[in-house]
């Protein structure tokens, strides 16, 4: 547990990647700023700063909720996530070893999904949230492409052309028990 005191003061409690943080923050601090400047978690990327490109996507679990929501960390006030739990790209793997990678991380590597990689954390987290939702509401296998487009179609990548991101995500969805129905 870490405690950080900032110059201005709104106390919040937020769990990030399983770690509880009691923090006093400026009321207008965004989730991205909280993660990057206060918690040292720079894996969540900021590109447009206005919620368009989705590079800053993180998974958010509201207090008491079972499922994950998507939030754009660059425009979401940190005060909004009070009491909830955030998962960032740094929290996907149980440890930084090849064996402990999340299946999405492994698939992104296997498919050479990214080039510069700056959009990769946003795609990873968007796909992570999608798979979480599919576990609650499985889809037919033939719907997978459409669902990926619906959920990740607004993510911007400038290098890759998207194809390999979608291939990797599709592969993981199809391999995830309970995400699709026959």
């Amino acid at each position: 547990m870490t405690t950080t005191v900032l110059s201005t003061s709104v106390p919040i409690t937020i769990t990030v990647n399983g770690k509880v943080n009691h923090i006093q923050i400026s009321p207008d601090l965004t989730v991205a700023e909280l993660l990057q400047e206060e918690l040292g978690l720079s894996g969540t990327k900021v590109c447009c700063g206005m919620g368009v490109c989705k590079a800053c996507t993180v998974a958010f679990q509201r207090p008491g909720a079972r499922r994950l929501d998507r939030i754009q960390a660059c425009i979401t006030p940190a005060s909004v996530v009070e009491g909830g739990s955030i998962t960032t790209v740094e929290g996907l793997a149980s440890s930084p070893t090849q064996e402990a990678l999340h299946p999405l991380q492994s698939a992104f590597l296997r498919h050479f999904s990214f080039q510069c990689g700056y959009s990769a954390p946003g795609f990873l987290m968007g796909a992570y949230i999608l798979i979480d939702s599919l576990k609650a509401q499985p889809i037919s296998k033939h719907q997978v492409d459409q669902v990926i487009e619906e959920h990740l179609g607004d993510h911007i990548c400038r290098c890759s052309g998207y194809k390999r991101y979608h291939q990797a995500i599709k592969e993981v969805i199809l391999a995830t028990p309970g995400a699709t129905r026959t």
Partner: protein
Amino acid sequence: MGEQPSRRQFIKQTTLGTTVLVVIQQTSAWVGGDQAQGQHSKTLGNSWIDAHGKAVYRFDGPAKVLGSKVYGRDFRAKDLVGWPQTEGFAHILRATKCDRPFLRLNSSALRDKLGCDPIITSGDLAPWNLKAPLPYWTPSPFVSIGGHPLYFGQPLAILFFRDLAAYRKAKPLLADLNSLNSFVQYGASSSPVADPRPPFGTSKFVNYLGDTGAAAKNADDLANKIRQELTFDPKKESTGSSLNKNWRIYQRSFETQSVDPMFMEPECGLGWYDSKTKKLSLTYGTQSPQDDLDGILSLLSGENAPKITKIQLNVCQPGGGFGGRDLSEFPILLALASVLQPDTTQRIVYSRSDQFQAGLKRHASQCALTLAVNQTPERFGKLEAIHSTTLLDGGGQNNYSFAVQNVGARNMTGAYDFARSLVESEARPSQSVPAGSMRGYGSLQAQFALECLVDEIASDLKLDPVDFRLKNLVPDHKPMHTGVVPAHKIPSRRVLEKIQESSLWKNRHNDQLQKSTADKLYGVGMALAVKSYGKSPGDTCLASITIAEEGAITLSTHSVDMGNGTATTLPLALFDILGRAADAVIMGDTDHFTPLSLEGPKAKDQIDQDRLAKNPRWVPSRSMSTAASAGAYQMRHPVVEAAKIIFQFSIWPAARALWGIPSSTQTEVPKEVLWKKGLLTYQGYRPLTWNELVKHIYKVDGITGVMVHSFYRSQWAQGTFSLVMAESTPSSPPKDSDKTAKQRSIQIPIDALALKNGKHSYQVVDRQGVEFPPFATLMQGANRYTPYGLVVAVEVQRSAGPQQGAIKIVAAEGYLECGTVIQQDIVEGQMEGAFAMGIGQTLLEDFAPAPDGPGQGGWNLHRYQVPLARHCALSQTKFTTLNAEPNEDPKGMAEVVLNAVPPAIANAIAHATGSRIRKLPVSAEDLKKGLL
């Protein structure tokens, strides 16, 4: 170093060859690796490659999927060991008016409202007498007090904020353009005047039946002759007779727009100037580390400028580049901010809006293109002549514009053979945001015009577009219009034949009949792009391979992986030679090459070059920035050569000793000596492990590191070096008496060499002789080319309504001949990414013209549409690489795969609608006229 060097000495020494610069590139690691300071690359082992020497994932991939700190934006002062923890912020205030002089800032109001202090303008910097960072740049990045801003977005001032809280507080006001402008006092507006600056660059290539007009007057005569022969008869509308009645003349005008590279990570970084030691430390992502540092030192070389004794640059992995981080002004501004606020860490963190306002752009272009085609039965459909006049908008700063227009002109004729050619090109200054060396490098603009008009001519002559192109290809080994003889066959024919076989192309007419409806028009178009790769002044490539005592191989190179995959492909180059890939890679590493002791200056002519070449440390160029298309061929070359030296002069002698083969009987490596499953094998001898060999090499003080510099300009420089093989028998300890020194003089395609023996440090090996490419090749340009063919199918909304004229890409097939493919996934990824980027260039991306363009501020992705997955027909695209000839070199390909996209889409639209596209981006409004 001894005493403090004089300024002049210092500048001389701060190119390669001294210990002044320390450049560190973040590297990939499964564990750890979050500290910026120090070369912390961890050994990955060879788990990232398969048994065939192919990568199973990108070398830099693990760090990126784990969210490790690799980009400039990831780092804070607390991540950088030894840096001041006081972290201030600098913000660049920029000009939004160019029609009036900049008088002053309302500094007191700025301080009160924004909380910034100090505020630095050009007036404050005047005593430093700033020098131009590059010879062709303006001396100061800042608008002079009382002077007109040269361009929209030119820096007016640096505003300093004491900490993050103060900067955050000011951000809403900094983003409010009206509010911000109220602090800037301009003089009275004046009517627009022409930019007084001369063109940034001009090119003219003439070729009349093989005569390239060596004499200027002759060139002018030839040019006039071509102009006369191509005289257009306006009475004939689209085509007209010329003086030559056998020709049909097609004269068209084309326009392409400026776009933003829109790499995902806006520029950002940290700087720290230590006022006691005069050391400047910088951390950011760049494509051009050496040029950046030279530029900073030049800028601050005035007598009263702060002294710099050392620069440490932590080169981060760029979050995209595409040319936008090559000679960017960002490092200059970061350095200035650092020396202005010494003994603190200063951060400049561009927002996306800042990046749109300040970042390098693609040159907008206007091209007047005239082609003549023979209409006699004997030569029907043969292209006879070309005349192009291209104007590029270089924006406010000459950032590679001189080279971009030149490369565009060199690639103007594409794959085709013209008996008569007059290609003229000019880049001009303007008030737009500076344009740079964005992917395509001028050739995108050229090939859009050419491929659209070639397609139109084929259609007009009722010829199949592919057949027409096949008929007009440059024959093998024939000089291009520039006079350059390609170094190899350009396999355009193979690419076109593949297009002919593709289902999308073969079935286009039937598909059009079946898929066009009352609501939609379907069409298929193709384009063939041919792009040279390599730099006109020559390609300068550095690499070293160092083997640690425990066997791990570290590859160092000065080039930067900006996502194009060189951090993966370069270490793979070792596999066939050393039986394994590198275990660690350090990119952007410049200081490491100090032991080569390279010396300048640049030669002025052949006599000068011959004189300079007598100095065994002299090289034509010491370093160069990273260009995307130079990775596969040029940058790979020194890696391969270093590996070959290790194998021949270190591994082989060790193996021979371990196998008990007398050194006198086998000095050359027999071809039967092969790596099999990581073991070195030779008929009848026991296989040797890598670690066994390395252990022996260390025992005998054999070569454990090879560092090379190589230079390409139409051909590789060939150096002669004397190398020593150190040997001993395996059964005895390495006494001096056991060592057999075998000295051999060899010629290798490198021009500088340093070796590391055993645990010793690198020592330069003086060159005994050298054959540099003739000086005349300096003006010839690159002589290696890659062809790429693309077929695209589109649907155009026909029915009236808000969607009328909307264009949808529905399928594509691309065929690339890029020689030996080092890593299929990376090549295909480049093709896929270029396809998306090309769609953006063709259909989506655009700026309002000045004064409402990006330099005005306020631009972001809410008004600048880049392609999304839904624009790219993901499941209906297929990108194929053609098989290479045996032992064929890899070819550069990252740019050519972009160049074919705009004309292929435009030609598909023409097939669908009958409307020829000559202006980008294509708008629905433009198409509506043809659809109604």
